[in-house]
Every structure is written in structure tokens, then in C-alpha cells.
């Protein structure tokens, strides 16, 4: 890697070296060290997760991913519940957050009066800075009672027996569960997606937009057919950033998801995510197999996150069609 850096772009020779030239190799070294340290620590994480989780992976094999019995007493661990819970909550959070984030970003860039733009923009960024424990507490003490009274109970009582709505709304209507956790997650990832989308939309050349308006396009058409497709590739990155955060979110979810290791039966039923399971049990796990299973869960989460990011890369590599 160093050789490649040295061979490119040779500096024109001068009679005396420019001031600070002696610093160049140091700077180069520091940058290289920073980049490799990151890579090395990432590798270290993977290796230690593999080593730590190995006893569980060899003991349960593929069944670790496909069975949903999580029993610390009988020492049987199957992670299907937390894995499915992680995927469902993250996907739901994304579905809920994306349209709102798109709306926020489009409004800020295209429609917002100048004096409001900065206020709303700052507010969105502030949302991103709230610690997740605050979201968790708010979710449990404020959101859950409201959600239970005004969403879950009416929906459950309105569901005709045997209908799809009835099977979706199974669970205990106490405001915690899969859907409640997804909504909290959506609020948490919203500012990240909105802020990135806003930056992207700001970068759209005015000519593109103005030509569209000039052709008589309506505001909705400009948004859906011109500016959003223009930033599509960057937007995928923004979405993946949000998804990555949703997959790994721990504290807020732990408070409100209901923490049951079974496969979730409905949107109002209790579930768990990989991160919440680790947070709940790691401190008190004393048996080696329990600890190993929790570390193996971490490895699974790592694999899921890696897959998501790799997919994003793949999508970004496709040529933009405009």
C-alpha cells in the first residue's frame, strides 16, 4: 500500500525542499496507521466474536439460527426469536421513518421559508443527539400508556374474529411490543436519514429542478421524478445508515419490546432483538455456554449488519439511470 502511494504523482523536484517536507512521511504514516488500526480492530472484533461464540456454534450448529428455544436453565439456546425480532423491528422502523424523513428533507430544501429552515434543521439535528436511554424511558413511561389506550385497545377490539387484523394485533395491549419498539426506533433513525437526505437534496443543481418546473411539472412530480431520483444513490447510503443504527439499537428497544425470546406472534406481542438480549443477559450470564451463546448472537448481528452494508455498496455500484 505504501509503495502505491509513493509511486503516484511524484512531486516536481526543487532546489531546496519546501518547508515542512520532512513532515510528509510522518503524516503519511499517521494516516496509514489510522486506516489500518481501524481495519485491525474490526478484524479483532470478528475473531474474538468467533472465538467467544465458538462453543455455542459447535454445540447447536445451524439450529442456533433456526430454533427459538432460549432456556438458560436447561442450557438450550436458539436465536431465531431475537434474529426475527431484529429484522422485523428494523424493517418496520425503516418503513415508518423513510416517508417522513423524505418529507422533512424535501420541505426543508424546496418549500421552507428561509427563517424557518435553520430552526427546523437544527431541531432535526438535535433529535439525533438525544441519548437512546431517554428514548427508552420516554417510550416506557409516556409513549406506552398512550399507545396502549389509543392505538392497541381500539385496534384489537375493532378486529373482526378470524381476520388478518386480528392475527396482526395479537398480544398484550400494554403499550410494549414489536410495533411500539419499531415506532420508537423509527423516531430514533428519522433525524439521521432526514439530515443526510437534506444534504443530498441541497446538492441537486438548481438547473435540474428549474428545468423541470419550467416544463410545467408540479411540485410532487419534481420531488418524485426529478430530485429524488437524482440523489437516489446517495439516498440508499442514507437509508442504510439508518438501518444500521436500527439493527444495533439496544437500550430504547430493551425498555419497550417486552423481551420475550419466542418468535413474535403479532405486532403487539412481546419480542426481543439481538442487541436487547445481549444487554439483558450478558452481565448476569455465569455459565460458559450462556456467555458463548450471547457472544454468538453478537456475531450474528455483525453478519447481518455486514450484509446490509454490503448490499448498500452493491446498489451504489450500479450505474445511475436517469
Amino acid at each position: 500500500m505504501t509503495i502505491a502511494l509513493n509511486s503516484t504523482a511524484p512531486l516536481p523536484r526543487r532546489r531546496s525542499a519546501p518547508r515542512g517536507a520532512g513532515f510528509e512521511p510522518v503524516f503519511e504514516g499517521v494516516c496509514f496507521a489510522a486506516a489500518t488500526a481501524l481495519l485491525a480492530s474490526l478484524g479483532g472484533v470478528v475473531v474474538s466474536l468467533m472465538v467467544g461464540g465458538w462453543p455455542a456454534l459447535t454445540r447447536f450448529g445451524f439450529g442456533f439460527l433456526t430454533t427459538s428455544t432460549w432456556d438458560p436453565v436447561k442450557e438450550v439456546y436458539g436465536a431465531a426469536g431475537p434474529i426475527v425480532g431484529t429484522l422485523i423491528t428494523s424493517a418496520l422502523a425503516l418503513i415508518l421513518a423513510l416517508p417522513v424523513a423524505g418529507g422533512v428533507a424535501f420541505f426543508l430544501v424546496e418549500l421552507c421559508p428561509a427563517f424557518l429552515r435553520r430552526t427546523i434543521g437544527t431541531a432535526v439535528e438535535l433529535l439525533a443527539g438525544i441519548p437512546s436511554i431517554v428514548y427508552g424511558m420516554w417510550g416506557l413511561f409516556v409513549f406506552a400508556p398512550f399507545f396502549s389506550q389509543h392505538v392497541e385497545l381500539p385496534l384489537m377490539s375493532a378486529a373482526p374474529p378470524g381476520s388478518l387484523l386480528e392475527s396482526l394485533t395479537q398480544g398484550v395491549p400494554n403499550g410494549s411490543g414489536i410495533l411500539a419498539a419499531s415506532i420508537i426506533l423509527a423516531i430514533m433513525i428519522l433525524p439521521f436519514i432526514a439530515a443526510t437526505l437534506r444534504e443530498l437534496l441541497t446538492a441537486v443543481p438548481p438547473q435540474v429542478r428549474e428545468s423541470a418546473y419550467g416544463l410545467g411539472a408540479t411540485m410532487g412530480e419534481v420531488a418524485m421524478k426529478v430530485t429524488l431520483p437524482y440523489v437516489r444513490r446517495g439516498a440508499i447510503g442514507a437509508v442504510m445508515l439508518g438501518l444500521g443504527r436500527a439493527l444495533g439499537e439496544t437500550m430504547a428497544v430493551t425498555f419497550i419490546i417486552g423481551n420475550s425470546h419466542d418468535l413474535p406472534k403479532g405486532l403487539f406481542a412481546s419480542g426481543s432483538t439481538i442487541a436487547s438480549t445481549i444487554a439483558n443477559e450478558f452481565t448476569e450470564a455465569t455459565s460458559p455456554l450462556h456467555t458463548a451463546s450471547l457472544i454468538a448472537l453478537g456475531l450474528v448481528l455483525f453478519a447481518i449488519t455486514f450484509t446490509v452494508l454490503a448490499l448498500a455498496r452493491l446498489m451504489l455500484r450500479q450505474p445511475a439511470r436517469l
Partner: protein
Amino acid sequence: MLKTILAAGAGLAAALACTAALAATISGAGATFPAPVYAKWAETYKARSGLLLNYQAIGSGGGIKQIEAKTVDFGASDKPLKPDVLAANGLMQFPTVVGGVVPVVNLPGIAPGAIRLSGAVLADIYRGVRTFWDDPAIKVINPRVKLPHARITVVHRSDGSGTSFLFTSYLALKAPHWAKEVGANDAVSWPVGVGGKGNDGVAAMVKQTPGAIGYVEYAYAKQNRMIYALMQNRAGGWVAPTAENFAAAAAGAKWQAAPGFYLLLLDQPGGKSWPITGATFILMHQKQANAQNAHDVLAFFDWAYKNGNPAAQQLDYVPLPEPVKALIRKSWLKIVGPNGQPVYR
């Protein structure tokens, strides 16, 4: 800017110098349940002796791992280790304070202590066998209470905890079905119900769900004035969760006959004994490389046994009975330094 950094640096240096001057520091890690009382004792003891206690409340599991790895002078656990596990690791353990677990409910119109539960009924509720409050099994022990036809929502701890260990151990003791199907541990595979994180999580879910039942630590139930249930003890009486009744359970227990103080104070004899009572424990290595630190640890707990009762009671812990303390002091002779002599007499 530079000035601020310099000032901060000087302050830090001064702080470090201070710590170094005090020198004597003992470190412990483990259970979160007794952390407030250990902190209170340490604060008072420091003013007297200058000894600094660095206690990290990382959970019982963490405490056991840390003491096995010898990174701390003592570990703390809400779950006593079995004598064979102690022996295998060269450890010994002793209890410090007593606490208990209290079932709490959310039933409109029911006052604290108005509803009665037995171990068998509680186990059936947590197994998902009794699903309505007006179940005949609950009615029979509550003849004077008007129980609604409301669904029971079971709430349990989602995080691994000594509270769950004590609670599930009690259910396993009283209900063979529970022992066979679920078992006892700090985290179990709960047959039904929702999980709340920590005492506050359980309490919040119980408060927000009409018809809910949960279990929390005694101190938590008391300080938050939760609607507790009366429990039936071994003598057949209906008792309330009070400090007095926890003390009765601790006093009635046969500590002499428990090797390594491995004793859960569940379902103890005595008319006033609260049935779900348990002590929290300290773990130490029997062979100490650093005799001075081990001496300091034991001196600290010796002081706490003598002078710490009021502080413990103020924080809603129950002190150990005096005869038990005497037994513990005797057990300390097993902790020896490099020269084979007891580190503390």
C-alpha cells in the same frame, strides 16, 4: 485555552496525589442489589479509617467472573455459589444483608395487602395455567375479595437478576411443575408474560397494565408504595412483606447446617417469616496473595456488621441476625495469606 488545560492537568495531578496519599484502596465488583448499602457503608468507613472502597455494580455474573479472574479483592453475588463450585475455585462466601422479593399487582380497587397468594397459585399464574383473576384457585384463598373477571398479565424481569433467581427458586420449591418445566435461574425461559428491564421496568409495566402481576425487590416495592400481595408462609400464616418478617425468615434459618453459607431463605419456618427472602453474598479467595488487602476487606465488613445496621435499615435492607454474624466471623479464619496464617482475626 492553554491555561484551562494546564489548570485541569494540575487539578488531575492533585487528585491523583491525594489518592496516592490515602494508599489503602480495596476493590470489589458484582451485584447491583446491595450496591447502595455498600456505598453508604464505604462512605462512613472512609471518614473513620481512610480506607477507600471501589465497588463496581456490574451484576452478580460479572462479580463472579471478576473474582475468579482475581481482578478484584472481593466479588459480590445475589446468588450463592454451591459448595462444590466454591471449592473448585478456591473461594469462600459469606452473606452481608438480607432482602426479599415481593409480588405486586395492578387490580382496580384492591389495596396493598388486600389480596392473598400462595406459592402454588403464584407458580400456576406464572406458568400461564391460571389466566383470570376470578380463577377458583385464587378465589378460594381470597374469600372476602371481589375479584374481577380480568385477564392476568404476567410481568417478569427481562434482565438476568438475583431477584428472578430468588423468585424462580421459590416457585420451583413450591410447585413441582415449575421445577420440572421452567426451573430456577437468574434468567429462565418464561412460559408467558412480558419482560421489563430492571425493577423500574417491571413496576412500570405492572402500573400501566390493569390486571398485571409482577415481582420486585422489597425496597423498590416499599419506596414506590406498590400494591403488594400477602403470601402464605410455611407455617400457613398470611404475611406482609415487612422488614420484621424478612428478619424473622433470616433468624429462623439454619445457617450452622449450611456449608459455605449456601442457603436461600425461602419458605423458612416461623409464623412471621416472609417466604421469598434471600441474602446477598460476598465472594473471596481462601488463599490470598495480598494479605493486607484481604485484611482491609474483612476489617471493612467486620466494621459494617458492628456499625452498619442503621444505615442498612434506612435503605430498606435487613441486617443479619447477630448469631449469623458470629458464625461468619469464625469462617473468616479460613482466609489465609501467603504465610498460611489467617489474614484477619
